[in-house]
């Protein structure tokens, strides 16, 4: 289990992570979704004790990473940035990590087999392709057979076969009861990989829900209504077959004030809500058709071509990759990171 409480990280004036709180439960794959620059990698480094937050805490199984006595047997991490010396062999990289934990060198061979790097184990890591480097990173993460795994954009640079391999690996680990926390800026990838989603944008939490629920909600258009008489308006909307929730989900919107309460309405269009309010004499302070979660997400990713829709089986705009299995969205990407 991973718990982040009120994490904030600033680099100069740039707030990379902004009062972020969430919990990652064991036994399922939790996706960490957000556009490039949203703060995913920074959050992972904070959880791993590599960077220091300005405020907040992160714990793994109840303890800060820096106080773990058996770190690699507790947590395995694949970071976004390369962390291998180019003139050191894959085997020696894993060997020194194993030695620091008091593990036998046979464990190194086991993980090399696991990721399919046995043949190149004694080659310089500097000559590895991106995909091979990712596999080496996964091998390092798996070294201690940890209960908790953090994988930062693990499918980056992998061929479709590799993508499928990682996806299966994560599912298998989660079903073995491990905590699997995996980041991606691709909603498609998360839709087929993750059971649960934590979505962030500009360092802030946008949504946290099951993947199914997220997709369902993303397809609903909602309307934001602000009124001093929420009870009456809710009654009217429910009577018309609409649905009302607290309207404070989207980022960057003010919470309800004293004078008026924000409601998110689904199932009714904005003009119809306006008519209902007018006919009943209910005052509205705001009536705005609001982007769905996905649109909110898309807005944050604007300019990023590799981000597509969640439409299952559909082709992404801007991606030439064919779907790698039937019924699944294309996930391979030539990323621009």
């Amino acid at each position, binding site marked *: 289990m991973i718990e982040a409480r009120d994490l904030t990280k600033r680099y100069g004036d740039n707030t990379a992570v902004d009062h972020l709180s969430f919990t990652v439960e064991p036994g399922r794959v939790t996706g960490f979704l957000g556009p490039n620059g949203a703060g995913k990698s920074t959050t992972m480094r904070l959880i791993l004790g*590599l960077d220091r937050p300005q405020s907040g805490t992160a714990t793994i199984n109840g303890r800060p990473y820096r106080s773990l*006595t058996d770190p*690699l047997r507790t947590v395995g991490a694949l970071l976004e940035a390369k962390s*291998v010396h180019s003139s050191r062999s894959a085997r020696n990289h894993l060997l020194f990590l194993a030695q*620091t934990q*008091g593990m036998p060198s046979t464990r190194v061979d*086991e993980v090399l087999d696991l990721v*399919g790097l046995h043949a190149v184990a004694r080659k310089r890591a500097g000559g590895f392709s991106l995909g091979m480097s990712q596999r080496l990173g996964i091998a390092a993460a798996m070294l201690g*057979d940890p209960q908790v795994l953090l994988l930062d954009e693990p499918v980056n640079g992998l061929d479709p076969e590799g993508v499928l391999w990682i996806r299966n690996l994560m599912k*298998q680990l989660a079903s073995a009861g491990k905590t699997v926390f995996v980041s991606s800026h691709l909603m498609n990838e998360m839709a087929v990989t993750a059971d649960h989603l934590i979505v962030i944008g500009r360092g802030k939490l946008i949504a946290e829900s099951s993947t199914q629920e997220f997709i369902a909600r993303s397809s609903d258009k909602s309307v934001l209504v602000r009124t001093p008489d929420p009870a009456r308006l809710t009654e009217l909307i429910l009577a018309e077959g609409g649905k009302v929730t607290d309207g404070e989900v989207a980022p960057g919107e003010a919470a309800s004030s004293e004078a008026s309460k924000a409601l998110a309405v689904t199932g009714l269009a904005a003009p119809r809500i306006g008519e209902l309010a007018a006919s009943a004499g209910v005052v509205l302070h705001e009536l705005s058709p609001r982007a769905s979660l996905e649109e909110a997400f898309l807005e944050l990713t604007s300019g990023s071509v590799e981000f597509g829709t969640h439409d299952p089986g559909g082709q992404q705009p801007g991606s030439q990759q064919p779907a790698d299995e039937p019924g699944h969205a294309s996930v391979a990407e030539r990323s621009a990171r």
Partner: protein
Amino acid sequence: MTSATQVAPVSPASPTAGRRAAGFAHLLLGEWTKIRSVRSTIWSLIVLVVVSLGFTALFAALTAANWNGPRAAPRDATILADPVNSILGTGIGLGQLAVCVLGALIMTTEYSTGVIRASLLAVPRRIPMLAAKAVVFAALIFVVGEIVTFGSFFLGSAILHSHVAVSLGQPGVARAVIGTGLALTVLGLFAMAIGALIRHTAGAIATVIGVVLVLPILTGLLPGSWGAHVNAYLPEQAGGLISQAHEQAGNLLTPWQGFGVFCIWTALLLIAAGYLLRRRDA
């Protein structure tokens, strides 16, 4: 590449069965694997040995050939006054730059390659990683350093044999020879500490070389006796006193005091490096 889509079974808790938390000996082993498995180590040590022995031999041979030659009198006098210091001060004086470079690289490449993140994930308390690295590196430089200093001593004294007779049995000689290897070791740690503080290869190497070669020249320009006093306490100048078999008249410190000053400088820098290693983002 072999890439089975089938996931190999995750091995059943084999690495976790009946284990104890890894100790400092494990960290030493890990750092040893790190240091021996990159080319820069091998190359730096080859340069250290070849340059030290090569230039010691070259200097001794040129000196011997030109003994009593025109305008050689002051030089010959210097050599006669402390032949050991002259032998150890030439080739090793150049070869020690390889130790400076390797010491800096051993930390800065952790940052330039990103290995520092893997290292710190494995040792999240951080200081033990730095300590293990320092111990392993110091042991390596001590062994190679003593080989180089003894080798230089025997080589140089053999070539100069017909002009000056030196042996390890003479007063101060064994201390100077062994001490020069020790000073090389401390120099390596000094460079490593600067590498850890600066974290960028070019900047760290430039700083180390600056402190070793340039700073003494600058402080020499200070007015009056200031220059001599400041100079005496500079890391490299103080550390270099150990190579003198005979203490010179103007020395402000004894050889061991000088070595102690060098050790204190190095210890302070390592402490600062450890402090910042814990504070800074990796």
